[in-house]
């Protein structure tokens, strides 16, 4: 297995720069997710690491060795596009063993490797089955087995679960992570689905417009987003953004929010008066008549354990996650109280998070 390192990796297509110079190191055995909307450069980055695309600039190192210009087949990396692509005329063992057969391995060795792979994936009982007879989940396991059987240094996966419905996708996430915990293969996983990234990854790189906006552990990124973009992309419903105008001084523990005072984590940087954004996660909101932000309930969405209550305020529509036992009437006037120590502040113009006792700045983490 291997450490993957990317240095100043850049890719331009004519006038368009797809990747603006990425730098990150993925430790050996780690599960790394590249997360972002379509067009953010995540797939291009992955293809450069795989050797399917040559970078305009920068280097890719595999276990310290520069492989930037080595062709894909010589990189000892397994690339998994869509987990469903199987050879229909072969049985499960044939599908899994195929890459070894192509490499000219002997039959007995192939049989042993296939058996070992099947054991890791817990599909030993399916080895002689036709692939067309398999369930969706088993087809995915077989496709994974075909990638695993070569014992590559790393797995690169590009939205492998994209075609599945939401509930099954989350189930497969658990399974992929369990498999990772058994074989500890360095994995890079590209997705636009924040739930997949949060659920599986040790580290997430959030990408936007060809740049990595933040790298960190899932909970770290959720709790301390470095920008408005990250805060909006992670979490469902996403963080609420309440605009206001104001200046900040280090040491202050409250902001002047439209003539009201709202407690926030201690400010750690000075800002001249300008447009700012208060960021509030839905689960950090509670109803309270005395609260400074008032609004009217627009809708309540029952989710079993909790409910998402949307409230129209003078500063926009706000989503709050509340216990489902709370009775909420549509049109009801409510006050919104925020949990001070979890609030985030952003520069409305640049989108960057402002340093506070909760958020340590761009170098945080």
């Amino acid at each position, binding site marked *: 297995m291997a450490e993957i390192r990317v240095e100043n990796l850049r890719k331009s297509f004519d006038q368009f720069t797809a990747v603006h110079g990425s730098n990150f190191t993925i430790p050996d055995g780690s599960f790394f997710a590249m997360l972002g909307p379509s067009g953010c450069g995540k797939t291009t980055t992955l293809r450069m690491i795989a050797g399917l695309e040559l970078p305009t600039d920068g280097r890719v190192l595999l276990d310290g060795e520069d492989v930037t210009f080595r062709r894909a087949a010589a990189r000892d990396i397994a690339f998994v596009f869509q987990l469903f692509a199987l050879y229909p005329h072969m049985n499960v063992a044939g599908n899994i063993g195929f890459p070894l057969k192509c490499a000219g391995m002997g039959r007995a060795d192939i049989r042993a490797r296939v058996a070992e792979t099947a054991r890791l994936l817990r599909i030993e009982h399916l080895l002689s089955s036709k692939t067309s007879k398999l369930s969706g989940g088993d087809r995915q396991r077989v496709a994974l087995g075909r990638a695993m059987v070569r014992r590559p240094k790393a797995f690169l996966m590009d939205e492998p679960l994209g075609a599945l419905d939401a509930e099954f996708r989350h189930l497969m996430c658990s399974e992929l992570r369990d498999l990772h915990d058994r074989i500890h293969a360095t994995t890079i996983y590209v997705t636009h689905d924040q739930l997949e990234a949060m659920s599986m990854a040790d580290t997430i790189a959030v990408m936007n417009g060809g740049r990595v906006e933040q790298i960190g552990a899932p909970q770290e990124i959720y709790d301390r987003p470095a920008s408005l973009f990250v805060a909006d992309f992670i979490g469902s419903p996403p963080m609420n953004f309440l605009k206001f105008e104001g200046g900040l001084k280090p040491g202050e523990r409250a902001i002047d929010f439209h003539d009201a005072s709202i407690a926030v984590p201690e400010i750690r940087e000075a800002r001249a008066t300008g447009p700012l954004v208060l960021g509030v996660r839905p689960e950090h909101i509670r109803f309270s008549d005395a609260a400074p932000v008032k609004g009217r309930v627009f809708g309540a969405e029952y989710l079993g*354990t909790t409910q998402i209550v949307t409230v129209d305020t003078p500063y926009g529509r706000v989503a709050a996650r509340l216990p489902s036992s709370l009775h909420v009437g549509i049109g009801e006037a409510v006050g919104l109280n925020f949990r001070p120590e979890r609030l985030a502040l952003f520069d409305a113009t640049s989108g960057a998070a402002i340093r506070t006792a909760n958020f340590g700045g761009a170098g945080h983490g």
Partner: protein
Amino acid sequence: MADVGLHNISKRFGAVEAVRDLSLSVNDGEFVVLLGPSGAGKTTTLRLITGLEQPDAGTVLIDGRDVTRDPPGSRDIAFVFQQYSLYPHLSVYDNLAFPLRSPARRVPEPQIRKRVEQTAELLHIASKLKNSATRLSGGEMQRVAIGRALVRDPAIYLMDEPLSSLDAKLRAELRLELKRIQIELGATILYVTHDQVEAMTMASRIGVIRDGQLLQLGSPREIYENPADSYVASRLGTPPINFLPARLVPDAAMPAGTETIGIRTEHLEIGKRNGGSLIGRIHRVEHLGEQNHVHLAYKGEMLVTLADPHQMLDAGEEVELHLNHPLYFDAAGRRIPVTMQ
């Protein structure tokens, strides 16, 4: 608007019983969601109401009138499909006006203009009326498709997964909008989906359907808290309810005949070992931001519970399990009611 009733409807396609003895009423002003996997008979049920299919047995009533043998055109129904199906050569305005311009309806132009403008206002697409239908975003196109149903004032709106082709964010937005519009108009809607979140968040009542049979009909809260069987229990809730074979929970008081115990994730409590008899081992802690999903191994079964994201829990740790508000199911999966003492 009006109420719609299905009485003992059955429909067979060759060897497949698509709908089996299904009875269902949608009351005036109600938003009923049929929830089920693909192939459960949801779409067939809608098509039977429209008259695009004829039932083998049973009756369809609209506003108390038996319409079982009436042709589709005379049933006073508006249908919204999964695909946008707009007329690409027409403007948004003309797409919305189209159903009212049907020669059978003869709605005067000024009245059409009024209806179209009201509908566009309701759907927040008033500024797009002059646009060509193809020059809209996915969300706007689906709003127009819904709007084309709303310009009419039919007895009932039938909707077949109208949001499923949209991305997650837009879907969440339109869920709220659709519910608001339904309340504002007092519209009667029968909506089918395989998405439990859509069902839970929009429905006045959910009908859980499987293999052509209606398993349970009730408010989202009733279905979630009081499921009739283990399938219904598993259909609502993310992460799904935990099931434990009763034999793995010794010394628990449970009704006679209990084979399986169901515990919702929020009712599975974990704590430090403190003399309790149910000991599980933490397999993995999944960080999802607003909460953690803690995966536990207990006597060979995997269970999931919820935890605060900042609670310190490590894989491998042994914890004591407490099963709060358990649901009991018999060998056939039917719920065994517990009588309060």
